[in-house]
């Protein structure tokens, strides 16, 4: 039903983005089957599609990219960027950052030697956009 169409939609997005197409497709499907709750799987979408409607979204057919960014942040970023990026800790505070979008995207992709890992080969452009949206949504 919705879940099947979702699998297909997410898979196609991954095929467009991934370098190792067949392997990524297979593993992504396996990952979703094994680990994703329907709520989280929908949150992985980077854009909108009628098939991806969820009970939680406010606008018709759209999944909240900021929410997706929030989940990604808690997966891999919150370890260093304290309190969800709201406070300075071992890493800079992100809420209210005056850095440009380009700077932040570049930093996420390339990291900083000895300080932050490079996520450019892990998160696709859409996911990085969502993380950026999440950061911008934080109250300064």
């Amino acid at each position, binding site marked *: 039903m919705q879940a099947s169409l979702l699998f297909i939609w997410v898979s196609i997005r991954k095929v467009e983005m991934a370098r190792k197409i067949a392997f990524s497709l297979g593993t992504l499907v396996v990952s979703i089957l094994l680990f994703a709750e329907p709520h*989280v799987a929908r949150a992985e979408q980077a854009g909108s599609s009628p098939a991806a409607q969820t009970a939680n979204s406010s606008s018709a057919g759209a999944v909240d990219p900021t929410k997706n960014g929030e989940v990604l942040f*808690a*997966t891999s970023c*919150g370890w260093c960027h304290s309190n969800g990026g709201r406070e300075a*800790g*071992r890493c800079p505070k992100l809420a209210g950052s005056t850095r440009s979008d380009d700077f932040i995207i570049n930093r996420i992709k*390339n990291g900083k*030697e*000895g300080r932050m890992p490079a*996520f450019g080969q892990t998160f696709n452009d859409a996911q990085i956009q969502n993380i950026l949206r999440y950061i911008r949504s934080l109250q300064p």
Partner: protein
Amino acid sequence: MCGAASALSLQLSLHRKGGNESVPSAVGSACRLVKSNPREWFRVKMGEERMRIQSRNMAFAAALVAGTMLGTTASMAQMVDSKRLETADRDAKDWLMYHGSYKDYNYSGLGQINTSNVKNLEVAWMHFPGRTTRGMQSMPLAADGVVYYSGSYSRLFALDGATGKVLWTYFPELDDALIARQTHSPYNRGIAMGDGKIYVGTVDGRLIAVDMKTGKPVWDTKLINSQKLTVGFTGAPLFVRGKVIIGSQGGEWPVQGTIFAVDAATGKEIWSFSTTGGTEEARKTWGNDTWRVGGGGGWMPGTYDAETNTVWWGTANPSPLYDWSPNWQTDGARPGTNLYVTSVIALDPDTGKLKFYHQELPHDNWDFDSAIGELVMIDRGGKHYMVHPNKSGFIFVYDRANAKVENVWPLVHNYNFVKGIDPKTGELIGRRDFSAGPQSEPLCPAIAGGVSWNSGSYSPKTGLYYKIGNEWCITLEVVKTTPITEPQVQLNIGANFKMAPPPSGTIYGHLDARDPITGKLKWEVKFPQPPLASVLSTAGNLVFVPDARGILHAYNAETGTELWSHDDGIGHNGGIISYMAGNKQYIAVEAGFGGLVGDDYGSMFGEPWKSMPRDAGALIVYSLK
């Protein structure tokens, strides 16, 4: 000269336990024979070749004679083999493995520096390894007057222990592109030695052996596909009877953290043990096959009980670190107790098979690894104990035969992840589990641990265990996440959090001197910032503590009175040892800050940590004036 050679060999044979008393007379007569009739000497030697022990002594004697003839002052280094390693606790002049010996005491039997003269301790020499990204986090080793240590990027150094002169270096080539994508890179926490080689792991998943005399690489084995799994090796390996054992990172990543054993001579992998899916029994404790992405690993060196031929290892936490369901037996991110993460496990070193274990924290919901702590072998009152600090700040006391819990006592004052732990059974009482969302009460201790991976020290002289406890908490928001394994494995923390003061008031650390079995406190010294470096106690009745500000302190081991201190110029986050070189005792400490926990010190405490460099460090070596 032959008389001198004979006398010298007598001295040395008595120093070595079980020395052969016929050696000195053999040396004397061999020397005279060589001088008078070399051909005859050779015939005698050939005739004795059948008696293996005798011929070995002759070789030893010949070396002595040759050495004396050459007038060399080079130390008569016998290979650091299993025999030397297994008696390391009685070899005060060396530091042959990470914790000093398999007993994991982090203790020096040297007493030349003691309570009466430590005020005269001064810097003898220093060494700057360079490329000190993330500071200095390793434990140096010393054998026969030579100091060996690793720096960031698994760079290896051998230095003359008396002068600091560089004897050799080896810098492995690492996968820089991968390191840029890793969180913990590129520091290295230490090395092992054995059978003529130094062994070091790398963050890109390799175990490397170099010749101890020359630093030339002997073998280089890739054990983990780090390019895909992101995890590698940061911790020191352990040499056990011709094998080198090392545990991978794991914990925070959706992987199967694994312990590997390779052949020390060839580097060939012999066995591996998965800490998340190692046995059929284990897999049953992970619902939905989450053992495949369970985390675990064993990122600090374990130890070896030679009496029972058992390797003990502490395993790391599971991922995600914080589960979003309170009904974790059947629901949530990884339903079940999750064997064998956050456990102490006992393995057969020949096969890697599990002998027994104790899971310190079933369904660890707090990132309180068992990997973090030393495994201290103490015999007392006819009983054989294994004392082990868990990252929560609770100290577990086991029966060494089977890991049966004998006692559990808290080192720290601020904890609420449990109400307590039953000292008779190890059962968790009143455990705190979560639902997704912000938690109303901070979690104590913090993710940084009631104890961190810096080692404590046990002094057989005082019978006291010297260990740093940390009092801090975190505000916590648990978030439901999905493990990311494509195209490369990513961290799976499952939360946002921030360091916070404990209910008792302000964040602080304390060096405790306690009975290791009962936990009874003898004395404590408080620090406004928890020290993050290892502690050393000595037969000179001293306890050395390198603090986070950069001061190296020496305390009276019985009373805790401070007797001496010196500013090393940068915070400490590594090891400290003592060794002998040329009849003089040295204290070698690593200075350099920039580990994961230390990174929070700038925002928690301000200066000097705000402006403290994270890419500087040195090995600083002290001796008496």
